[in-house]
C-alpha cells in the first residue's frame, strides 16, 4: 500500500479523522480540564484580577472603584518611597546574590574536594537553615541582634568591636538583612553548585593537570565555564527570590529605621494592607513583575550559550 507522506502528516497533525486518536485527544482534553481550571483560578485569575484592580481607584474607604487607566502606575513612578524601595531592593539583590554565588561556589568546591563522611556532614549542616522557616530564622536573629542582651554584640566586644544597633541603625540594618538572608540561603546554593560539579567529567580536569594547568587555572578555564548552566539557574532563581524579599524585613524592621530596609514588596504590602489602597499596591506589584521579567530575560540572554562537552 502506497502512503502519501503529505496526507499522512496532515492526518497526523489533524488527528480528528482517526477514531482512536480522536478519542485519545478527547480524553486528553477532558483530563486537562481540572489542571487547567486549577491553573486558571489560582494563577491566571489573580493576575487578571490584580491587573483589573491596578487600573482602578480601589481603596477600602470607597465602595466604587472607577477605572482610572494608568494613574496608579503614574503615581507609583512619581512616589519617592517607590524609588527608595527600588534602590533598596536592587542593592539588596546585588549584594546578596554576589555574596551567595561567591561563598556558595567556594564552599561547594571545598566540600566537594572532601571525602565522606565530611562531605555529607558539611552539606547537611549548610542545608539545615534552608529547611528552616524564614519566620523562625527572623525571630532567632531578632534575639541575636538585640543590641544589649544579644550574643552577637557580647562576642564582638571580646575583639574590640561594637556594640552595634543591628536593626535600629540606618547604616547597619540593610547589611544585617543581607547577612540573615545569605546565611539562610547559602546551603541551597552550595547544594546546587555541588550538583553542578558532579556533572563535570573528571577526564577534563585530569587532562588539564597532565598539561600542567594549576588547580586555579583548571577552576577558571574548565570548572567555571562548565558550571554555567548551574550559574544561570542560581542567578535567575536567586534574583527572582531576592527581588521579592519580604518576610525577614517584615519581622525584623518593617522597612525601617526610616526607609533604610524598605523593599518593593514591603512597599506593596504597606500600600495594600496598611493604607488600604489596593489599586496602588497592585500597580506596584505589576511594576515589580515587569522588573523581575526583565532581569530574568536579561540573564537568560547573556548566559544562554549552548553547553557541549
Amino acid at each position: 500500500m502506497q502512503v502519501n507522506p503529505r496526507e499522512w502528516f496532515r492526518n497526523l497533525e489533524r488527528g480528528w479523522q482517526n477514531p482512536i486518536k480522536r478519542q485519545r485527544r478527547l480524553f486528553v482534553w477532558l483530563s486537562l480540564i481540572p489542571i487547567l481550571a486549577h491553573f486558571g483560578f489560582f494563577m491566571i485569575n489573580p493576575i487578571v484580577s490584580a491587573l483589573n484592580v491596578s487600573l482602578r481607584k480601589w481603596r477600602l474607604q470607597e465602595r466604587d472603584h472607577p477605572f482610572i487607566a494608568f494613574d496608579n502606575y503614574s503615581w507609583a513612578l512619581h512616589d519617592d518611597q517607590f524609588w527608595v524601595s527600588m534602590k533598596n531592593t536592587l542593592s539588596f539583590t546585588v549584594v546578596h546574590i554576589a555574596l551567595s554565588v561567591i561563598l556558595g561556589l567556594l564552599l561547594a568546591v571545598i566540600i566537594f574536594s572532601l571525602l565522606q563522611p565530611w562531605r555529607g556532614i558539611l552539606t547537611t549542616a549548610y542545608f539545615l537553615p534552608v529547611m528552616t522557616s524564614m519566620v523562625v530564622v527572623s525571630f532567632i536573629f531578632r534575639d541575636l541582634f538585640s543590641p544589649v542582651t544579644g550574643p552577637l554584640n557580647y562576642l564582638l566586644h571580646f575583639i574590640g568591636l561594637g556594640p552595634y544597633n543591628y536593626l535600629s541603625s540606618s547604616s547597619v540594618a540593610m547589611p544585617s538583612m543581607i547577612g540573615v538572608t545569605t546565611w539562610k540561603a547559602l546551603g541551597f546554593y552550595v547544594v546546587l553548585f555541588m550538583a553542578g560539579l558532579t556533572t563535570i567529567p573528571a577526564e577534563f580536569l585530569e587532562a588539564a593537570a597532565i598539561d600542567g594547568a594549576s588547580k586555579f587555572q583548571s577552576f577558571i578555564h574548565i570548572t567555571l565555564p562548565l558550571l554555567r548552566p548551574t550559574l544561570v539557574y542560581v542567578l535567575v532563581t536567586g534574583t527572582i527570590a531576592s527581588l521579592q524579599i519580604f518576610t525577614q524585613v517584615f519581622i525584623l524592621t518593617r522597612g525601617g529605621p526610616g526607609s533604610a530596609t524598605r523593599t518593593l514588596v514591603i512597599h506593596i504590602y504597606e500600600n495594600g494592607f496598611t493604607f488600604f489602597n489596593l489599586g496602588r499596591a497592585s500597580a506596584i506589584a505589576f511594576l515589580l513583575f515587569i522588573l523581575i521579567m526583565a532581569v530574568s530575560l536579561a540573564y537568560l540572554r547573556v548566559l544562554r550559550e549552548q553547553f557541549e562537552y
Partner: protein
Amino acid sequence: MEEGSEMNSKKWMWLSVLMLVSMLISSACAKATPTPTEEAGPVSISFVTHDFEPWRNTMIEWIGEYMDQHPGVEISYVTYPMTDMVTKLVTGFEAGAGDTVMGIYGPWLAAMAEGGYLDEAPSWVMDMLKDDFYDIAVDAGSYKGKLVGVLQHIGTPLPLLNVDTYEAAGISEDQYPQSYDDLLALIPKLDKKDASGSWEVQAICLPPTDVFVLIDWATVLFAHGGKILDDSLTKAAFNTPEGLAATQVYKQIHYPDADINLFPLSKCGMWWYGSWSRPMFTAQNPNIRVKVLEPLEGPAGRVHANYAWIWVVNANATPRQKEVAWDFIKYITRPEAQITFWNVVGVMPTRKSVYEDPAISADEFVQAFGKYVNETRVYYPPLPDWEPVEKALIRYLERLVAGELTEQQFLDQAEKEVNSLLTGQ
C-alpha cells in the same frame, strides 16, 4: 459519521475552553455575595480576633457558654496573628464577605466605616454604653456621629517603674518621677555602662521602632500642649514651640539601642506599656517588683496617648446575623466578662460599674490604670486616610531616634510630608 465525531470533539474542546474563560472572567470581575440565612432557622456567625493565648482561651470558653444558652446560634471562631489581622479583614471585605464579628484596632475604624463595611449599632447598644461605659467608649466606637463599635479596651501605656532598678540606683519612693523634668534629672543616676561601653542599666526603655515611637512621641507631645493635626484634620499642627519642646524631651528619654528585655531583668528603670504587660513580665521574672506611675506631668498636664480595641459587626452580614452579632458583643462585654478579662488577660474594663467590684477594685494596677481609662487621649484622629500619615511620622521618628535628624529637621520634614499627604487626599 466520522465528520460528526470530529465536530463533537471540536465542540468539546471549544466548550472546555469557553467554560474556563467564562469562569475566569466571572471570578475576576464578580464579587461574592453573602449567603442569606433563613430568618427562622439557626444562625451561623463567624468571629475573628487577633491571637493572644489567654484571650483566645477565654473567648473559646465564652463562645461555648453563649451557644449553650442560644441553641439556634452557631459561632465559628478564628484568630489571626496581629501582623496578619488587617490583611485578612481587608481581603474579606473586598471579596464582599468577611467575618461577622471582628475585634479591630482603633485606627482602622475610620477607613472601614467610611467604606461602609461596618454595621451601625442598634439603638440599644448606644443605651448600654451611655448607661455603664465610660464616655471614651462612645467616642472610640463612633465615626461621623454613628456608633459602629463597642470599645473592648484601651491600650494606655502608663509608665511602669522597676523598683529594684531604682533601689539599686539609690532612688527612694518619694523621689520617683512625677514629671518629665523629674525623669530627665534621674537619667544620669540610672544610666550605667560597663568598661567596654555596653549598657548595664538603661534609665528608660522606649522601643526605637514601629508604631510605639509614634504613641510615645504623641504622649510627650500631648503633655506639652501640642497636637498632631489641626482641628480640621487637614494640616499638620506639631511644628510649633510646644512640638519642639516635646520632641527635645522625647529625644532625651529615648535610646536608639533601647532594649525592652532589660526591664524584667531589672536592668531598665522604666517602660511605658499597657496593663496586660504584668502577666508578661512576671512570667519572665516572677520576683519583679513593678510600680505603676501616673502619666508624667508636662506643661499641659498629665496626658498619655493610647489606642483602642473595638468590637465591630460586618455590614455584609444578614439581618439575623447582625442581630445575633450585637447580642454576642453584649455578652462578651458584660460586667462579669470584663472582670474575667482583667484577671486572665490583664486588659482594663471599660464599664464604670466593674471598677466598684470588690473582686478587682483593690488591685494596684486596676487603681492606677483605671484612673486613666477615661482621661487619656487616642493618638490617632478619626481620619480614613490616617495610616499613610502615621507611617510617614513613624519613618521620621525612627530617623530622629537613630540620630539621623535633629529635632527641628524632624519637625520640618515630617510636617512637609504630612501636609503633602493630607492635601493629596
